[in-house]
């Protein structure tokens, strides 16, 4: 969806004003610790995937997405998913109390403290098999399609309609547009090199390339 999360090339957000690296804490508020941990722990129940999490955060009203801090957006996304997936009810969420325990099957999936390290260390590969050979070869000229899906996509707005060159083929990976809708399908993934002048117009200083990972169905021959 063309929403506020798709920030590449937008103007007007002001300076970055980074905190100094050696004085910035990992968390700035105590509640941020819990927000991160709750998102990871609830995610490990296996009731939604990473693209569904992203879609949940993106589909907030643009004003909410942009004015909330990052962990607040994580909280909003988590709250929405918990209700959508039926893990908690709206009423439970609003009063912060459980009216009933979760189903037995679901409780069995609770991440045990002693499993934290191995779970994080295992991660979750998105590499998949594909029956189809890749459509593009390294060095091919391609165009990122001018697509405007209303649902989740990982083709950034600033790349749409622009021409680049296949720089790498990463094999087949889980296709995010489908994954966000609950369909785990593998599709060839490429790294595409764009000249900044192609993305931002002829006045752009040269010696500037942008590399974007794009799935096969985002691309067409140029």
């Amino acid at each position, binding site marked *: 969806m063309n929403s506020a999360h798709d920030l590449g090339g937008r*103007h007007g957000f002001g300076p970055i004003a980074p905190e100094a690296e050696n004085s910035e804490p990992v968390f700035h508020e105590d509640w941020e*610790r819990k927000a*991160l941990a709750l998102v990871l*722990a609830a995610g490990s129940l296996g009731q939604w995937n990473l693209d569904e999490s992203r879609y949940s955060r993106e589909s907030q009203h643009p004003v909410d997405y942009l004015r909330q801090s990052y962990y607040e957006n994580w909280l909003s996304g988590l709250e929405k998913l918990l209700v959508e997936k039926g893990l908690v009810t709206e009423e439970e969420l609003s009063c912060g109390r459980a009216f009933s*325990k979760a189903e037995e099957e679901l409780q069995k999936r609770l991440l045990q403290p002693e499993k934290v390290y191995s779970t994080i260390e295992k991660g979750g590969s998105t590499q998949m098999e594909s029956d189809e050979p890749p459509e593009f070869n390294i060095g091919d000229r391609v165009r990122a399609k001018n697509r405007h899906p209303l649902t989740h996509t990982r083709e950034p707005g600033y790349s749409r309609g622009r021409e680049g060159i296949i720089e790498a083929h990463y094999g087949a990976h889980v296709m995010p547009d489908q994954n966000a809708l609950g369909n785990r399908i593998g599709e060839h993934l490429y790294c595409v090199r764009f000249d900044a002048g192609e993305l931002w117009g002829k006045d*752009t200083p040269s010696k*500037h*390339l942008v590399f974007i990972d794009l799935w096969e169905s985002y691309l067409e021959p140029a």
Partner: protein
Amino acid sequence: MNTHHHSTVPSDPELRVKALESLLVEKGLVDPKTLDELVDLYETKIGPRNGAKVVAKAWKDPEFKKYLLEKPTDAIASIGYRGRQGEHMRVVENTADIHNIVVCTLCSCYPWPVLGLPPVWYKSAPYRSRVVSDPRSVLEEFGTQLAEDVEIRVWDSTSEMRYFVLPEAPADFQNKSLDELESMVTRNSMIGVEKIKEPENRS
């Protein structure tokens, strides 16, 4: 007459988090000790010192550097870093002619096993919006000056590939120990917004 349909001022996130935690614990879906373990992991064990070890070793050991560039996920795992948000790594090497910078314009993808959790600025709208279209102005905010003929390569992490910058080694890296080198590697140099500072220039 407000035409927005967004929510009213969100409630205090501290209260939101507390309510959510007690709800999920009561539901039997979250163990509070698990939360503590997760926080401890990212606050004390998984952070940019991991990446600094990888970088220092690559500078000192040409075989390891080759392995790191060719099979980055395996090479990084060989010194103990792997897993969530680093399942598919790619290492991009800075040279005298090429400077790499990593961003995620669509959310805030970041190579957790080697860098830990991202700093606030990396997740912020100013960085995510600007670094792809005007990287030089971004580098300036970090005090980083590049010669005009250096090619800037910006890597937008739109897939589950995680990009990690191998910074240029300091001039006299061969005379320094692994530990010394490791201490010179900043997080920001592995994102690509800074270069390694030579000792005489360090603040």
